[in-house]
């Protein structure tokens, strides 16, 4: 019986399937951070439980850390307390922690792969919905709540209802200027924010194969924006080549691992519960106009009218979104001006993203009145970018070059929009208030964000020379 990759991963990790209980899956890697773990550790202490496998748990501080130099104290006492709690919990329970300022610190979904911790065939969980990112490596990876974090700490397992499977196939080759971000925005627009609910999505097709691991992570990262807890991409040469650089083992061991890793693909003819196909040729650089990530329009397009929406509930949601965003139907997106440009987040803060943005920015200046910031996803990304001189490119253009963290993606640290400010952001959520109370977020690719910073309005890289 041919099996999909999800089914293989599920079967290989099934510890028990007791009657009247959910199937119990073994968890190979548990990533934790300061925001969704303190209450879980408190729960362990209350019940006098230990961490079953501290060596399968890695911790970092990313969500609330300021992106000022690490020598600057954390001024917000509540954030500081939360960071201290992570330090204390990791020390008490024997968990490896990469704290603020550590050479390996960064956004949890950026450091997992670059440290070689994320590997094909693993089950990976984290108290963060963008854990789907790691699925790019053929690992079953999904976000969990704090009670589940406590459960995994205590048992190294998780009750997991078998999900339905969905194949999203992007046939053909994308046109020039279309990035992984544009591909995933098109997928979210097609499925809607609830379309992937109850499913694990496997991304397939030529346009996915053509992507680097970094691009594949961008795709899997936003699976949750289509409602799916996990996204997957089967292992191929691109995966193995990435792992060769990041998993530090001797050559024989690597060869043995690679042979095993290559089995993490769906069998030919394995049936999916649902199949969706998009044509790569149809994809264009895109931008969100509303307050959910399925509200997407072409950069060449105009702000849509709620009157064109046939479903009354959707029309009402669109009207409310436009009122919040301060936009008029029919306005060309390229005429919409921005106050802030944010290049960062677990979606788009890796070296390839920073290179794409820097290529647009090189030798040019940020438009007057625009605040533009680059927040590398990790210290490793920051170091590599600096070794290529990308920091100088951004700084010379008038960008801020900051320390790693989640930063303005969710505005838990001081990097926030002020009420009414409009951003072009390479992050993943344009929800009301996501980047700061009253802030208006438009999701774009790194190249479009860079061009927008230079022009002061939504723009594509081809416009900046004009």
């Amino acid at each position, binding site marked *: 019986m041919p099996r999909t990759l999800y089914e293989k991963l599920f079967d290989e990790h099934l*510890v*028990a399937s007791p009657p*009247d*209980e*959910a199937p*119990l899956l*073994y968890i*190979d*890697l548990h990533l934790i951070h300061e*925001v*969704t773990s303190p*209450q879980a550790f408190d729960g362990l202490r209350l*019940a006098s439980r230990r961490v*079953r496998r501290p*060596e399968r748990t890695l911790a970092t501080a990313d*969500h*609330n850390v300021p992106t000022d130099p690490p020598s600057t104290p954390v001024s917000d006492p*509540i*954030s500081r*307390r*939360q960071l201290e*709690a992570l330090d204390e919990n990791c020390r008490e329970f024997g968990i490896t922690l990469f704290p603020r300022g550590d050479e390996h610190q960064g956004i949890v979904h950026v450091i997992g792969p*670059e440290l*070689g911790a994320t*590997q094909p065939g*693993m089950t990976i969980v984290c*108290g*963060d*919905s963008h854990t789907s990112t790691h699925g790019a490596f053929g690992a079953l990876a999904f*976000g*969990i*709540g*704090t*009670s589940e974090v406590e*459960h995994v700490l*205590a*048992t190294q*397992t998780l*009750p997991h*209802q078998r999900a339905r499977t969905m194949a999203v196939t992007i046939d053909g080759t994308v046109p020039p200027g279309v990035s992984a971000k544009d591909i995933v925005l098109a997928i979210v627009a097609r499925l809607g*924010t*609830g379309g992937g*609910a109850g499913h694990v999505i496997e991304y397939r097709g030529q346009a996915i194969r053509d992507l680097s691991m970094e691009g594949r992570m961008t795709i899997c990262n936003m699976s949750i924006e289509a*409602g799916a*807890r996990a996204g997957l991409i089967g292992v191929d040469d691109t995966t193995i080549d990435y792992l060769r650089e*990041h998993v530090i083992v001797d050559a024989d061991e690597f060869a043995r*691992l690679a042979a095993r890793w290559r089995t993490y693909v769906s069998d030919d003819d394995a049936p999916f519960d649902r199949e969706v196909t998009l044509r790569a040729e149809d994809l264009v650089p895109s931008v969100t106009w509303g307050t*959910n990530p399925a509200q997407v329009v072409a950069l060449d397009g105009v702000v849509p009218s709620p009157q064109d929406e046939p479903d009354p*509930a959707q029309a*009402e*949601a669109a009207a409310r979104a436009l009122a919040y965003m301060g936009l008029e139907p029919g306005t060309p997106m390229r005429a919409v001006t921005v106050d802030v440009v944010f290049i960062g987040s677990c979606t788009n803060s890796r070296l390839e993203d920073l290179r794409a943005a820097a290529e647009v920015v090189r030798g040019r200046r940020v438009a007057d009145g625009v605040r533009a910031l680059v927040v590398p996803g990790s210290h*490793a990304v920051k170091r590599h970018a600096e070794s290529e001189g990308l920091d100088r490119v951004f700084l010379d253009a008038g960008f801020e070059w900051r320390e790693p963290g989640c930063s303005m993606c*969710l*505005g*838990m640290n001081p990097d926030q929009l002020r009420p009414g400010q409009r951003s072009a952001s390479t992050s993943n*959520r344009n*929800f*009301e*208030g996501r980047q700061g*109370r009253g802030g208006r977020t438009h999701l774009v690719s790194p190249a479009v964000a860079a061009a927008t910073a230079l022009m002061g309005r939504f723009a594509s890289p081809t416009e900046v020379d004009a």
Partner: protein
Amino acid sequence: MNPVRVVEGRAVPLERSDVDTDQIIPSEWLKRVERTGFGRGLFSEWRDDPDFVLNQPAYAGATILVAQARFGTGSSREHAVWALMDYGFTAVVASSFGDIFANNAASQGLVTVTLPADALEELTRLVKADPSRLVVVDVERLLVEVPDATWQHPFTLNALTRERLLHGWDTIGLTLRHDDEIARFESTHWTPRVPTRFAP
């Protein structure tokens, strides 16, 4: 977690679809290390508006939230469930829920009731017509009822979630009964190792 068999109370209609967990509890509230006190942050971006439904005296003290499609999508923050419960809600009715939110709700004993769109519309209408009406969510019989309007509608709940609610099970305790199986699994599982040496 306490067992939940039947919850009843007055209901408040939240007539918005796509209420993500950032709306339920904004991220500024996530810096706290406690599990309690999140009720003050519930829907805090909307609470300043005197017209917001939770501010209307007719709905004061309601314990059942009647929402719409795709309630609780987005961020995995369990704080959204803590906020709803701390505020006083015992059940949320909607036409669909975010997967992680629904899991988090089940772990805390917050009942999530999924109704088809037409039934949800009718329930919303009944509640708006008379906010003092009693609404009953029966986890045992899987029914939502408005007794004084003789209206009722069945709902489905994952069988395990229902059992968990009815018995108030501690899921970790349940899993630890499988300790031998976990140990046996660990001894034979092809375990990709988590590295202890990292690339520079």
